[in-house]
């Protein structure tokens, strides 16, 4: 009988595909080098933005590749906050995004419960419909949505954008939540119902508390979708004082020479909280995604 200790590498190529223990030091070195290179490629453009944001105004355009410029200054950050409408854009984005994420989660949480626990007529077509909506190019719906919004007088208002965002993540959220609800044993609810609880009570007292991780993922997903949207905001908002941060930052990036440092500073300020949130939650974000996909 063979044991693990007797297993020997065959060739460098074949060892590459094996995710085993006991790699040779040389192979380990190669793996670390490859991963360091990949990390550098992933991070370097971000470091460049940081670097530009710290440059003094007269040296914005420079062919230097140093990350921290010699005479680093926070001038661009001050300009963006005091002289530009940065705080206004952020405020607009936050109000719209938080409201829509809350409404979106409520819509999806109840809808997913119906899909998970009842075999009502129209269930399977409904699920297929939800899947199909993911395939529709957003640009395709823009013309009708624009015309609809113009007729309902929703252009240049927070309302129009908020309504549109609340619904846009619902199909995906329902899929994720349905997958999660399906993993909760139905016995829990049945025994509660024998004790006289109604369906709504079991949903509220059993399902929702047990689904907190999935609900958090869906909230985060709704939040991120609305927070990072450019296309819909571009169509619905034309007045600069209504701009969300994506539109605002786009105007800053428009003029390469003048505003590049301001664009970089604004980007860093938007990026840091979003990245912190994302990296902090990425573990369950991913488990939620794969759970929804695999378990169904």
């Amino acid at each position, binding site marked *: 009988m*063979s044991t693990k200790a007797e*297993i020997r590498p*065959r060739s460098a190529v*074949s060892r590459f*595909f*094996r995710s085993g*223990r006991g790699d040779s030091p040389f192979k380990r070195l190669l793996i670390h080098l490859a991963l360091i290179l990949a990390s550098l490629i*992933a*991070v*370097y*453009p*971000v470091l460049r*933005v940081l670097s*530009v944001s710290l440059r003094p105004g007269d040296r914005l355009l420079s062919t230097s590749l140093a990350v921290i410029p010699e005479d680093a200054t926070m001038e661009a950050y001050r300009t963006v906050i005091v002289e530009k409408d940065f*705080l*206004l854009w952020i*405020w607009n984005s936050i109000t719209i995004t938080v409201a829509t994420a809350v*409404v979106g989660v409520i*819509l999806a949480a*109840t*809808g997913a*419960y*119906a899909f998970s*626990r*009842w075999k*009502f*007529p129209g269930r399977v077509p409904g699920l297929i419909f939800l899947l199909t909506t*993911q*395939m529709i*190019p*957003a*640009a*395709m*719906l*823009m*013309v009708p949505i624009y015309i*609809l919004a113009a007729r309902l007088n929703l252009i240049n208002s927070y*309302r129009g954008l*908020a309504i549109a965002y609340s*619904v846009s993540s619902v*199909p995906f959220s329902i899929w994720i939540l349905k997958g999660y609800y399906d993993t909760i044993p139905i016995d829990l609810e049945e025994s509660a119902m024998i004790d006289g609880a109604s*369906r*709504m009570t079991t949903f509220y007292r059993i399902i929702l508390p047990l689904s907190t991780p999935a609900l958090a993922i869906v909230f985060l997903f709704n939040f991120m979708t609305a927070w*990072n949207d*450019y*296309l819909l905001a571009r169509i619905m908002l034309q007045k600069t004082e209504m701009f969300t941060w994506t539109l605002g*930052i*786009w105007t800053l*990036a428009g003029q390469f020479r003048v505003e590049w440092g301001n664009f*970089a500073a604004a980007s860093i300020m*938007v990026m840091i909280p*979003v*990245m912190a949130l*994302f*990296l902090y939650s*990425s573990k369950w974000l*991913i488990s939620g995604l*794969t759970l929804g*996909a695999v378990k*169904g």
Partner: protein
Amino acid sequence: MGALTGEVIARSLGQIGGMVFFTFAGALILEVIIYLVLGRVFNSKYTLPYMLLAPAAVGLALLVVYPIGYEVRLAFSNMSLRHFRDPTFGLAQGIDNLRSVFTKPVLKQAMFFSVLGRTILWTGINVAFHVVGGMTLALLLNRPMRGRGLYRTLIVFPWAIPQVIAVLAWRGEFHFEYGFLNVMLRGLGLEPIQWMTDPFWNFAAACITNIWLGIPFMMVIILGGLQSISREFYEAAEIDGASGWQQFRSITLPLLQPVLTPAIVLGVIWTFNNFNVPYLINRMELETTDILVTALFRAAFEYNRYGFSAAFAMVSFAILFIFAVVYIRVAGGLQGVYE
């Protein structure tokens, strides 16, 4: 120009609060109606699920079903800036629109089939790099090693950055004089590249940006899949003398299939429909970088050909839909998803 003042805060909170209030009030009225009609009149045992679904269904009807219906109607009209208020509708118009999609330029010069070809190339290049790059990194990371968590966090960076910022930052780096790519090329003694004006390199720039953006998602999904594969399979294969490549072919790939198929379908759909990258990278608005989705947007909002762009949208959607159905049938990856 405006600043963040108390008045602005009050107005936005008022609007948002009003929107939330009306949403809930509307939902409540809807629930009462469904309860009375289904529950009391028809005595249906499905009253509760329908009540649970109703708000989401109405929202989707308003934001997805109605616009699609309207888009279909638009495809049969001659609506444009000239005929915005008085469009004429009719079958002849629809056939005319459909014919011009295939026979006339969709923008100024770009013909439909060249844009379609570019879209397929764009999707193929991007998804291939995403899957191969993500798979390589996931295989490298799927082992006990020092610094694993740190590598993983750093490599996930591109996914964590808001896409608009990432694309605009990359656009800055494609600047001829000061972008780091050209600075590096000069440092190596090579010719710098005209990223913004040369059609080939502008398309390449969009691809580079999107590949950079998309690898982390695939890596994370594949890594999750790899970790769910039991070690015992590999140990058994080693005993039988299978090489690393054979193990990859006969164990890793088949067992990764349930994760990989939906990820690839999603990846293709997202890339095919990606608007931000090709639109924002393309500062000079070269028609040679447009893919179907951005061409669609320009036809509608820059050339104001609403009727035509609606027909164009139908054709684009049909292509994607056929791909998805065929791929899912062939790969069988979504079987049992709705049971």
